[in-house]
């Protein structure tokens, strides 16, 4: 089939294409899931950043 010498190699190609299709389908179906409340995380991260001083070099100043 498709010029392959044995079924195992054919199966490897079929599963490769199938798994790529699974990734696409999963990502689209779950595009906006799970719905998470980000406010708590954002608050915590802002707090950590105050304890994490800016660099003395580089930076966007």
């Amino acid at each position, binding site marked *: 089939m498709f010029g*392959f010498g044995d079924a*195992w190699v054919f199966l490897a190609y079929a599963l490769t294409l199938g798994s790529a299709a699974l990734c696409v389908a999963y990502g689209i179906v779950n595009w906006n899931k*799970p719905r998470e409340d980000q406010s708590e995380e954002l608050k915590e991260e802002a707090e950590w950043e105050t304890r994490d001083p800016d660099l003395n070099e580089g930076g966007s100043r």
Partner: protein
Amino acid sequence: MNLIFLVLVVVAYLVVTGILGYLGFRSTKNSTDYLLAGRRIHPMVMALSYGATFISTSAIIGFGGAAAVYGMGIVWLTFLNIMVGIFIAFVFFGRRTRKMGHNLDAHTFPELLGKRYGSRFLQTAGGALIFCAMPLYAGSVIIGGVQFVSQTLKVQYEVALLFFVAVVALYVVMGGMKGVMYTDAFQGALMFAGMAFLLCYTYYVLGGVGKAHQALTDLAPMAREAFGKAGHTGWTSMPVAFSPYWWQLVTTIVLGVGIGVLAQPQLTVRFMTVKSGHELNRAVVVGGIFIAMMTGVAFTVGALSNVYFVNTVGKIALLAGDKKTDNIMPLFIDRAMPPWFVAFFFVTLLAAAMSTLSSQFHAMGTAFGRDFLERGLNVRAKNSVAINRIAMGAGIILSTLIAYALPRFYAGGTAIIATGTAIFFGLCAAAFLPLYVGALYFRRASREAAIACFSAGVFVSLFWLFFVHAKEAVPLGLCKSLFGRPSLFPALANVDPIVVALPISTVVFIVVSLCTRPVPAEVADKAFRGVKTA
């Protein structure tokens, strides 16, 4: 190929890479930016960065060349790359890693494990292992990139080595994770375009998909004549079960890299760079397609190169490449592709090597800087980023020395790129995978179990590499000098370390967890806060 055209393409590529690296540098304000790109990376950039880091010149030149020897059976690895390396990694590991990483304010993979198990030792030892072992993998990636650069531009290996490392080092050390991920996304897009053209043109040259496969199937007698004694049956069929070729294909390549990807520190840290769980779901779309186009194409084209070389020079690919698997893909591109594409593919390979290398440099630097020096040895400085930058410099020098010395040590064309990659992937899987799964899914897991699992994984892997697995034990010679024979267990000399070390470290983790007390409830509660919904 027109050298001026090639130089123009390379300069254009380097200019864009430089600009993106500079943007990363400009927008890096604190250590969260430097280590995790501020936890605000777009899912598309994250997916391309993950994929481009995952796929190096090892996958294209090293494993593509291996496909020219082993045949299309190696495509099982592509299936595992997508299913395990993308789908399972993102959906079952990624979302929890991101959430737990946030809960524990972890910035690196060893820091996540150390904080989850309440063990400073684990973070320190994990960082040390990554810093000691990753230069071998990084060295392999450098060799792949530099060999191609030096062959194509006709410059000395040492000159190409210095130039190549200096460019990557500059934007990684200065731009941190933002510099790495911005450039990765650009490099990933180039790689996608290059591999898509390579696949289409190869089928075009060989007369179409079915015809090309059939022509390769018809070459089975030549494959059996060359490799039949080791179990080869043809390039479009699997080797004889349990033959030396079968063991090499299944254990070293398929299992070694396919499962090992789950516990790669430079990949897992990327899950912590996006701001929410659904962004990881979006990234799965891009990641799945990207990996299929990378390894799937390299393996297919590598195997099909046999048809091209038999038709044009009357030799199978390995003989056309002077019996060096690493020569096969560059030679095929040079002979079979249109001249303009040789220049473009040169940049594709450069992008593949640089994107992987930049992440390795970053992971090595943070492992040594943040995990080993800052957490382990309590080294303090005015800003943490400076320590990580210096540590990164140390890792870069070490990797460069390996890339300088290894080709001399392994002269003779054994597939050093693929071997170096497989060793690192296997070592990480045995040392980290069981305790990483435990960290994400089992509240009951104990600190003692995590430490025992890590130690067992490292010890068994190294023992197997030095004293049993012929591929490393024979050239290293330690077993021969201590015990007077090349391998302690000749019957198992073809079995990859991961096949033995991973089950042992897993059993150790489970047994010790059952016999010891779980981590304190407050540590587990903090780690698992909101995890089920993530």
